[in-house]
C-alpha cells in the first residue's frame, strides 16, 4: 500500500473522536470523522475508507443499522466500539457483518492491535493457493492440512470448520455463523455442536491445546482464528 490507510471514526462524542484521531494519526493512519450515522454513510460512500470504527449509540440511527447499510454497499472492514456490553448486541453486530467488537472503555494498544489484524486480513489473497499461518498450512486445493510438516487428519466437519475459520483470519466468527456455514443449521439450540467440534479441532491442530495459538475463544460469542 502506497497511501496511508484511511480510517473513518464514527462517534457522537467529540472528545473520543479527538483522542482517537490524535493517536491513530501518530500511528500512521489517515483519519476522517463523522458524528452522525447519516454523515458516516455519506463519507463512507465518498471517501472509500479502508476501515470504519463505529460507535453504536448514534443520535440519528442505531449503529446496528449503520453496520447493515455499510454491508449493503461494500466490504469495508468494520470494528464496533461501544459501551453496550450485552452479548446480544455484540452477536447482533457481528452477525450483521462487523469484523470485530471492542467494549468501552478500551486500551489504545488493544485497539491498535485489532486494527492491524483487520487491515492485514483485507490484504490476504483469496483463492485456492495454500495458506500458511505459522506452523499451520492449509491447502484447499488438495484438501489437506499440515501442522509443523505433519499432516493432520481431520473429520469432514472439522475440515469445514477450519476452512471457514481460516478464510476469515482475525475476525470473530459467532457460533450462529459457524453453525450456519458448517452445519447448515439456523438455530442456536445446537451451539454445543460447534463447541464440541472445536475442542476436537484444537486437539488436532494446537501443539499445546492448553495454550492455543490458532483458535481463540471469545467466551459466549464465538471464535477467532489468528495467524
Amino acid at each position, binding site marked *: 500500500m502506497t497511501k496511508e490507510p484511511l480510517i473513518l471514526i464514527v462517534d457522537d462524542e467529540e472528545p*473520543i473522536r479527538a*483522542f482517537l484521531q*490524535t493517536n491513530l494519526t501518530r500511528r500512521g493512519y489517515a483519519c476522517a470523522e463523522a458524528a452522525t450515522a447519516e454523515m458516516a454513510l455519506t463519507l463512507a460512500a465518498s471517501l472509500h475508507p479502508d476501515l470504519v470504527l463505529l460507535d453504536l449509540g448514534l443520535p440519528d440511527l442505531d449503529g446496528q443499522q449503520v453496520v447493515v447499510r455499510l454491508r449493503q454497499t461494500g466490504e469495508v472492514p468494520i470494528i464496533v466500539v461501544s459501551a453496550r*456490553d450485552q452479548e446480544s448486541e455484540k452477536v447482533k453486530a457481528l452477525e450483521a457483518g462487523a469484523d470485530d467488537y471492542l467494549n468501552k472503555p478500551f486500551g489504545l494498544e488493544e485497539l491498535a*492491535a485489532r486494527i492491524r489484524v483487520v487491515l492485514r486480513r483485507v490484504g490476504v489473497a483469496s483463492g485456492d493457493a495454500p495458506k500458511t499461518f505459522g506452523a499451520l498450512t492449509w491447502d484447499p486445493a488438495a484438501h489437506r492440512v499440515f501442522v509443523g510438516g505433519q499432516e493432520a487428519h481431520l473429520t469432514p466437519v472439522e475440515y469445514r470448520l477450519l476452512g471457514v475459520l481460516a478464510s476469515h483470519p482475525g475476525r470473530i466468527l459467532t457460533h450462529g455463523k459457524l453453525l450456519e456455514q458448517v452445519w447448515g443449521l439456523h438455530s442456536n439450540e445446537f451451539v454445543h455442536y460447534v463447541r464440541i467440534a472445536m*475442542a476436537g479441532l484444537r486437539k488436532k491442530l494446537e501443539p499445546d491445546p*492448553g495454550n492455543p495459538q490458532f483458535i481463540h*475463544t471469545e467466551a*459466549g460469542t464465538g471464535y477467532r482464528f489468528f495467524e
Partner: protein
Amino acid sequence: MEPDRPDPDALLATLEPSSPDRGLLKVFLGYAAGVGKTFAMLQAATSALNQGRDVVTGWVEPHNRPETTLQLAGLEGVAPRSLTHGTLQLWELDLDACLARRPQVVLVDELAHTNAPGSRHEKRWQDVEELRDAGIEVWTTLNIQHLDSMNDVVARITGVLVQETVPDKIFDSAQEVEVVDVDPEDLIDRLSQGKIYGPDQAPRALGGFFKKDNLLVLRELTLRRAADRVGREVDSARTQAHVQKIWPVRERLMVSVGPSPLSEDLLRHAARLARNLGAQLLAVVIETPGLRVLSPAAQAQLAKNLNVAESLGAETVVLRGEEVARDLVAYARYRNVTKLVLGKNRGHLSWRFWRRTIGDELLRLSGDIDVYVLSGRNPPPVKSKNREASGALPWKEFGWSTLILGLFTALGVVFESWGMVEANLILTLLLGVVVSAGFFGWAASVFSSVLAVFAFNFFFTEPKYSLSVANPQYYLVFLFLLVVGAVIGILTQRLRRGVVASREREQRMESLNRMHKELAGLVDAEGICTVASGLVGEILGRRARVLQPDAQGNWPQGEGYDSQEAALFSWVLGHGQKAGRGTSTLREQRLSVWPLAGARKALGVLVVEPVAPGVREAPGQDELIESLTASLASALERVDLIAEAKAQALAVETERTRNALLHSLSHDLRTPLTIIAGSIETLEASASSRLDPGESSLLATVGRETRWLSRQVENLLHLSRLTEVGVPWTLEWVPAEDPVLSAVGRVRSLHPGWAIDLKVPASLPLLKIEPRLVEQALVNYLENANDYAGGAGVLVEVLLQDHQVEYRVLDRGPGVAEGERAAIFGKFTRGEAAKTSPNRGTGLGLAIVREVARVNGGQAGVESRPGGGSVFFLKIPVPDDQP
C-alpha cells in the same frame, strides 16, 4: 360403531413408555422361600458395586444364613427404622433415610411385606413405588404366591393362602425379572438340613407347602409367568416398531363386578385370561338404584372388589344405570370390548322367577361380543355378617304396616255397613297395601298383602269373624289379592329407589352448583379456603377444612392440627395422592386428606374429619368429595393464576426499569471514562518527553487511578446484573477448557507483561455453564493474583475429580489467613493483604466469583498453596447426561 376404529388409548399406551426419570425395578422372582433370591440379589449387588455403581441395602430380611450374611458385609446399608407397637419392637425400611441418601440402586427385600402400623404406607411395594418415583432404581425379591393373580391358584394347589400380595401391575412394571431357580430336590434337601427355617419348623414345612409335588407345580407356574412377561415384552416391541403402519388392535376384555365376594375370584380369573390373550382389562360396576342402598358390608365388599381390580391392573369404571345387561353391552360397544366376562349367578332363584338372569339378557344383546360365563367357587364363610345385616326382619316397618292395614280394614267395615259390594272392599284393602308399600318398602308390602288376605277373610267373607271359608271361589280372590299386593310392593319399591337415587344425584349436583356459585366471586385464596371449608362441611355433614400452605410450606396455625398432621398434609400435597383414614396410606390417622391438584401443581388439601361417633357415613361420599376437590382446585387455581399474572407483570416492569437504569448508567459512566483514559494514554505517549519528572509522575497517577475506576465500574455493573433476583441464566454445554482458555487469552492481551502458566488436561468433559460468567470469574482471580500476590509464579490449572471440574489459580503471594477465607468472598470485604497492598480495590472481585459459582451450581473458595501462596478455586459439577 365401526369395528376397526383406531383406539386412541391403546395407541397412547404404546407411544408412552414409562417416564424416563423413574427408577427402574428389578425383581428376583422365586417359587418358594429358600430358593436363594436374597443371596442372588446381594451377589448381583456386590458385582454392581465393583463396577462402580452406588448400591446400598435398604432392607434385607435377617435370615441368619451364613452365605447371605457374608455377602451383606461388603455392602453399605441404610439403617432400618424402629417402631414400637404395643410392647413389640418392630423394624421397617427407613424410607425417608433412603430418599435422603439417594443411591443409584437400593435393595429392598421381600416386596410383598406388609408394613407395621405407623409406617407411611400400608405395603412395602408402595414404599418401593415412592423410591422409584424419586428416580432411585430398586432391586427386590418376590415369591410367586405373593403375586396377586397367582395368589388363589397357589392357594388351591398348596392349601396355604397367603395374605400379603403384590399387585400384578407393579410386577409387570419391572424392567427386569430374574428367576432364581433351584431344583426342588435340592430345596427339600436344604430345608431338611434346617438351612431355611429353624429345626423345629422344618418338618412341618416339609409336610405342607414344601411337598415335592407342590414345588414342581409352583416352579412351573413361576417359569411360565416369567416367560409370559418376556412374550409380552416382545409383543410390545413389535407393536412399537409398526406403530406408524398399523393401528395396534388390542383385545379388550370387560368384566362385570358386583358387591359379591365371588367377584374377587372372578376378577382374578379374568385377569389371567386377559394376560394370556394380551388383552386390556376393564372392570365395570353398573350402579343400579339397588346398589345404592346396599348394606355397609356389601358396600365395603364392592369397594374391595374395585381395589382388587385396580391392583390386578384393570381399569375400573363405575356407571350409573338401570339395567345391568343393557348398560354393560352399551358400554362394551363404546369401548370396543371384544370379550365380556361374568360370573355364574348361584342362588337368587327369586330373580329368575321374575325375569331372565343378567347372563341370559347379555347373551341376547351381546351380538358380536364374546361372552364368557365363569363359575366361581362357593362363597367363603365370610358371609355371616353380611347375611345378618341384610337378613334381619324390619319389625318396625311391619308394626306400622299392621297399623295402616288395621285402619283401612276399619274403613272397609264402615263401607260395608253402608252396603258397598265386596269388590270395593277388596280395593280398599289394596289401597292399604299400596300405602304401606309406598312408605315402608318391599317387605312391608308383602307383609301387608298377607295381612290383607287375612283381614278380608276374617271380616268380609261368610262366615264372618272366622278364618274358615264357605265359598271355594274366595281362595282365588285371596291368591289375586296376595299377588297384586306383592307386585304393587315391588313396583313401588323400584320407584322409590329411583327417586332416592335421583334425589341423591340432584343433591350432589346442587352442592357442586352452590359451591361454584359461592366461590366464583372470590378473588383471594384465603377467602376461598374459609368459605369452602364451611360449604364442604355443610355438604358432607362433618367438619372439613380447606388448607393452603404459605410460601415457606407452613400450614396455617390455629386450626387445631398438630405437627404430625401437618406432615400428613405436606405428604398429600407433595404426592398428589389422598392419604389418611379410609385410604391405603397412613390410614391410622384420624383425618382423611385429599389433594387439591390444579393443572400445573398441587394447590392445597381438603381435610375431612371423621363423622361423629355413632353416625353412619353416607354412601358414595368419596365420589362426592372427589368432585368437590376438583371444583375447589379449579377455584384455587384461578386465584393462583391471577396472582401469578400480577406478579409477573410487576417483575417485568421492575426488570424494565432496572435494565433502563443499568443501561444508561453504564453508558453514562463508560463514555467519560473512555475519554479520560484514552486522552491520558495519548498524552503519556506524546507529551511525556516535554514534562518534568514531577509532572510525569502526576500524569501516571491520573492514568492508574482512571484504570482503577474503570475496573470498579465494570465490577459494579457485573455484580448488580449477577445478583438480580429472578433473572434466569441460560446455561449452555461448553467444553470445560473453553472459559479458562478465553480468560487467560483476555488477561494476556490486556496485560502483555504478566506471566501466566497454564495447565489444561487433554480431555475434559462438557459442563453446563454460562461461559462468559465463568470466564469473568477466572479473570477476576487472575487480576487478584497479579494485584495482591505480585503476579509471580501464577499458575492456572484445571483438575477433573469427584464428578467436578476444578479451575485453580495458584499464586506465590502472602496467602490468605484461615479466618478470612470465607469473608473475603463477601461484598465490599477485603483481606488484610489487600488492605496493605498499594493496589486499591473495592472488594467486589471475589463477590462476583461467588455469584458466578452460585449461578453455575458450583462452589468458590481459597486454600493455601504448599510452599507458600494461595489457591483460588472454582468447582463446577459435571452433569451425567453429557450430550
